């Protein structure tokens, strides 16, 4: 199962986001799903992959479990490829795809550097 999410707003003062989730193959645009507030204090902010994993574990799985997963991806839900240093402001408004690993396996925090 692949999950997408879209952060509609980030509130730096409270370190919260409003975010909607749906299945990658949802027949409805992600914007049609209600966005909910999520507190970022206990999310993994190391990089995009880590952040996405922790966000989905905290909130996303629970909210998409009733959605079907055997449908094609519609244009509006096609996720973007994000590269470079992770900055949460840079992903606000973008569709991000999260590939779920076995929950027993965590993300190895690696940082690409230029030598």
């Amino acid at each position, binding site marked *: 199962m692949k999950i997408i999410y879209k952060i509609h707003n980030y509130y730096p003062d409270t370190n919260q986001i409003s975010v909607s989730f749906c299945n990658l193959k949802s027949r409805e645009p992600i914007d049609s799903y209600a966005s909910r507030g999520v507190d970022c204090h206990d999310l993994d902010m190391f990089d995009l*992959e880590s952040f996405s994993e922790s966000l989905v574990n905290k909130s996303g799985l629970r909210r998409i479990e009733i959605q079907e997963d055997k449908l094609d991806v519609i244009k509006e839900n096609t996720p973007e490829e994000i590269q470079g240093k992770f900055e949460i402001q840079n992903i606000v408004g973008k569709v991000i795809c999260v590939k779920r*690993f076995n929950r*027993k*396996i*965590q*993300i*190895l*925090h*690696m*940082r*690409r*550097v*230029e*030598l």
Partner: protein
Amino acid sequence: MMIQKFIKKCEEFVLCGGYGDANGIFTDGFPDNNAIYHIITKGCVKMGRPFESKFIELDAKSNNFVDVKDYLYSQRVYTSSSPYHMFGFNAIDPNQMWDGRLVRDSFDGDDNSWLICFKGEPIINNILLKPMDYAKLKNKHYDVYLNDALVGVFTKV
């Protein structure tokens, strides 16, 4: 007994890792585990095929960077005799072969290679690296102050 596994898909390879306690045992193998090099930064782990007498001893002090291509398509069993922290370098495409080596001194790089810092804080081309930093190399010289770090270079062949 505690075992925690980690994984990270990078641009051209996948690095997996794990740590655990002494007297641990776990199995892993193709297609989930494509490791062709094991790097161990703490402790001792034995790895082999189930029911074979032959095995490899991974030891952070004496055998810490080990070519395990011979086990690529095998089921593997791992046992630890002490608390350990180890990694596996995996090709995304198991048919793609890589040569790996430890960095011991300054060297000339090439654009088919990736460098990974597994332990310590080396200084390479005046950049201070931290554990789990990695870089794509270029066709140029790299000045290395190893500072007792464990650094590997992996080259597509």
